[in-house]
């Protein structure tokens, strides 16, 4: 799964200074002491709203993230690849469910969150607004997109909010299989025919920059980081995590014999880091605003699924009500 720096969306709720002084101070000192906050504990309204926004957007990303890969289930090149891809897409659905549950502990309902997604009011990770044109894209998504997501998510396992941290522990455990199966697809293609190698390179060319953008704007432009760091919702800056991802991923691309699509990429011996060329943030902003290649298609698919499932939800509710009546319980 997949979060990009989700704190970049929407407007920041008013800072905690407006809250009653005593509880706010006690709250912050609990956070400073690495104590976890649980659903019924007092918390500043801004902390609650920040978490609702971040966790629900994270959940939406999991659900929308099922679409680009689901696109290839019927065309997976072997039965093995097909069962693996089905399992991975099912995991993403499961991750969405863990996260929606975590968000609900903060006082928002599942129906409200769904409504925000389907109306377009809520954001999800912009990476899923890119199309999966070839089978190699399934490999590149596992390797790069899940790889970037893992980098973002591991620190959230220590988030100050208990239910979110616990959901992330489960998710991170499952995520590693996603990344490895993706890399294995890329490895197989890169050792294949000329056309297969070209397909792998083309996928890397298209997914490299969007994957780097998943870490969110550079620190200089990231408005909400400081407060999230104070609250220990966030532990590392966007640029720190991006750099870490670049440093581990570039050698993996070399192993595959593929070329990172960046002429400025070089090894900085003094700093012991890979340095990349400038990121085109105008593309990121455009996709975020709804002008990516698939924004409309993704939301349409979610709306269609929601409508098509309506009769099932109604039938299940009617069945449950009748069973309860027969059992003589209040419904």
């Amino acid at each position, binding site marked *: 799964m997949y979060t990009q720096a989700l704190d970049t969306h929407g407007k920041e709720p008013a800072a905690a200074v407006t809250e009653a002084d005593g509880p706010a101070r006690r709250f912050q000192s609990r956070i400073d002491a690495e104590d976890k906050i*649980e659903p*019924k*504990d*007092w918390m500043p309204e801004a902390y609650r709203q920040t978490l609702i926004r971040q966790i629900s957007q994270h959940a939406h990303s999991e659900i929308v993230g099922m679409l680009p890969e689901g696109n290839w289930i019927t065309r997976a090149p072997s039965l093995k690849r097909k069962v693996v891809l089905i*399992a991975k897409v*099912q*995991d993403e659905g*499961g991750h969405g*469910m*863990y996260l929606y*549950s975590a968000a*609900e502990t903060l006082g928002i*309902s*599942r*129906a409200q969150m769904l*409504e925000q997604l*389907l109306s377009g009011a809520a954001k999800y990770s912009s990476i899923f607004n890119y199309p999966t044109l070839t089978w190699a894209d399934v490999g590149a998504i596992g390797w790069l997109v899940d790889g970037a997501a893992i980098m973002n998510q591991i620190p959230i396992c220590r988030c100050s909010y208990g239910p979110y941290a*616990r*959901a992330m522990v*489960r998710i991170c455990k*499952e995520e590693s299989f996603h990344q490895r199966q993706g890399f294995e697809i890329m490895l197989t293609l890169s050792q294949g025919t000329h056309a297969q190698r070209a397909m792998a390179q083309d996928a890397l060319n298209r997914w490299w920059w969007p994957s780097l953008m998943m870490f969110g704007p550079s620190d200089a432009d990231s408005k909400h980081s400081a407060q999230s760091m104070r609250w220990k919702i966030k532990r590392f800056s966007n640029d720190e995590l991006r750099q870490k991802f670049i440093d581990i991923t570039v050698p993996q691309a070399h192993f595959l014999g593929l070329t990172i699509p960046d002429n400025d990429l070089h090894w900085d011996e003094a700093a012991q880091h890979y340095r990349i060329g400038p990121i085109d943030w105008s593309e990121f902003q455009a996709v975020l605003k709804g002008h990516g290649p698939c924004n409309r298609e993704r939301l349409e698919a979610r709306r269609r699924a929601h409508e098509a499932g309506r009769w099932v*939800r109604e039938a*299940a*509710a009617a*069945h*449950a009500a009748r*069973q*309860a009546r027969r059992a003589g319980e209040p419904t």
Partner: protein
Amino acid sequence: MSETDWPLFEVFIRSRSGLEHKHVGSLHAADARMAIEHARDVYTRRQEGVSLWVVRSADIVASDPGEADALFEPARDKVYRHPTFYAIPDEVKNL
């Protein structure tokens, strides 16, 4: 589009026989049977359990965090409930 959610259930898993059921999370379901089926899909995709409990969240009565001190503070100064409270000479064995 304002649908109401199915009831919320809390899910508990016994990871293997001999261990207690442990809370793992929650989910929505129309009834208890569906809750078990969903819990299977959502929480046990990797052999996490051999038994499931689901309980309607509305049926759980929880203590109030605001009363935590009143509930748990009295245990804090009763160190004599712990074996290390008692000084026994080293030469005495098997105690």
